[in-house]
């Protein structure tokens, strides 16, 4: 069992999910509430990873953030190492690639919160941020959880972007999905079976959890 790859995948998926919660929730909130006219452009950009081949995203990240680009030099100056083939690079790529998997469920969940409840909170003197934390988020919680779980699962299963941006460095950028590719190339079918089976089990478990969450009135106030 390739525990280094498993640990790396888990760390990458965990950090990606956390980053997406921090970035994706405000972005989703903005998408739901903004009256900005060109909002549809932002929505299209967020949805791009759904249709683009991962190689395209990886290619642009490599050229845009590579050592020879201004952004890449800035990255190197801040992080102390070049963007490609690093864990940080992998994280940036994963966050972008999983963006629609978090932002779309987040936005749907936030939009589903009754507007009058938000207005009621405002008339009771609670600030917009306070209202978000005390009303919107608690009521949108199942959808937010679903988005986070989907991002986690999607990052676990990511292959193309990881290979393009991160390469295949054991312990640093060699995730489970890349490890499976290695095992198969080396004709180590037993090892490939173990890793693939584990990934299948985790993904199935996660998706079951998400769908069960949306069906069951797990949160009592969602009844009716």
């Amino acid at each position, binding site marked *: 069992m390739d525990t280094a790859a498993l640990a790396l995948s888990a760390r990458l998926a965990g950090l990606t999910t956390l980053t997406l919660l921090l970035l994706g929730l405000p972005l989703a909130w903005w998408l739901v509430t903004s009256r900005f006219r060109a909002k549809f452009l932002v929505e299209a950009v967020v949805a791009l990873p759904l249709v683009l081949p991962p190689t395209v995203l990886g290619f642009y990240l490599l050229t845009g953030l590579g050592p020879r680009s201004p952004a890449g030099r800035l990255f190197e100056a801040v992080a102390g190492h070049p963007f490609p083939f690093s864990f940080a690079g992998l994280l940036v790529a994963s966050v972008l690639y999983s963006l629609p998997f978090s932002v779309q469920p987040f936005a749907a969940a936030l939009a589903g919160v009754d507007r009058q409840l938000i207005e*009621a909170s405002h008339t*009771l003197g*609670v600030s917009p941020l306070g209202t978000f934390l005390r009303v919107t988020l608690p009521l949108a919680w199942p959808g937010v959880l679903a988005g986070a779980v989907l991002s986690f699962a999607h990052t676990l299963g990511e292959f193309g972007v990881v290979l393009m941006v991160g390469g295949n460095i054991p312990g640093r950028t060699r995730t489970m999905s890349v490890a499976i590719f290695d095992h198969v190339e080396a004709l180590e079918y037993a090892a490939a079976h173990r890793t693939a089976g584990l990934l299948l089990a985790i993904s199935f478990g996660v998706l079951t959890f998400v769908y069960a969450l949306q069906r069951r009135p797990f949160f009592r106030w969602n009844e009716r």
Partner: protein
Amino acid sequence: MERALTFDVVRRFLRGPVISARASWSLERDPVTVLFGPSGAGKTTVLRALAGLDRPEAGSITFAGETWFDAEKRLSLSSQARGVGFLFQEYALFPHLTVAANLAFGLHRLARAEREARVAEVAERFGIADLLPRRPGQLSGGQRQRVALGRALAPRPRLLLLDEPLSALDAPTREALRGELRHVLESAGVPAVVVTHDRTEALALGDRLAVLVDGAVRQVGPVHEVFSSPVDAEVARVVGTENVFPSRLLRREDGLVIVRAGSAELVAVDPGGIEDEAYACVRAEDVVLEPPEGHPSSALNRLTGVVAARQPEGPLVRITVGCGVSLVALVTRASAERLHLLPGQRVSAVVKASSIRVVPRRA
């Protein structure tokens, strides 16, 4: 200077009327103002603009000398800063919070002990103390309304705004809660603005009536005054009842109530719930005019007086009879000629007890 609420709210809708409503009234007497009008007249638009939930396209709002909104100065105070209490049509209770947490929601600036004391006080006053641990999903319509009212009043707002406060209730509950709501509004010590399209509600809840027609405020005045002397035909059509008399219960007999209105006594069918003050309402077309000598009839109300005014209205004539109250009757031109209904002429006004609607004013 007297403290007043003054607004001029202009808002255009894509498909619909242009709202351009302006009015002003004192905040020092007559605490409850009813914004009354048919649906689509702009009542809710005005209410939401007062609350700061929607921003008008033009105009201004001042409350007790404080500017809440001024389109020209690009000034708009947030809902939070206005300190209003808003009662939503469907009450908008937070479904994930208990009744206690709903009541405490607007008290976040108070220290914990103070907050708990205030919640207990409000719960006591609204008779919902035993509901505190429940969630809104487990409450009846009437209980929800009480919780929502308590939640809106708990932070001691400067102005209370109610959007169709009784429309979410079933008819029997609505009947029962109308008087209770009047009592709450009267004793709250806060000026209130109530939006309704229901005449009975307007009469039962309001001290002052502001009539909106097609996006404009057409008339503001004491409730019975607006009902009995509308400024124009459109207001008259909207309010619908020409004769509205402040009255006092004298006694009950055989399922009837006898009330005193002005110096006249009126007999009406007992609607229940009347204890003291009430409005007696009669539509002008339900009043029959006869020569004063008269004859026996089944109608229980026979008021004799003199014609005070006569005003032609198409094929009809509007006759005002001074008979202890100022009663308006609508008769055909032919009848008016036949009975010589000119000012000064003695005449009897006859009204069936079932044509007089009595609306209680107190719980």
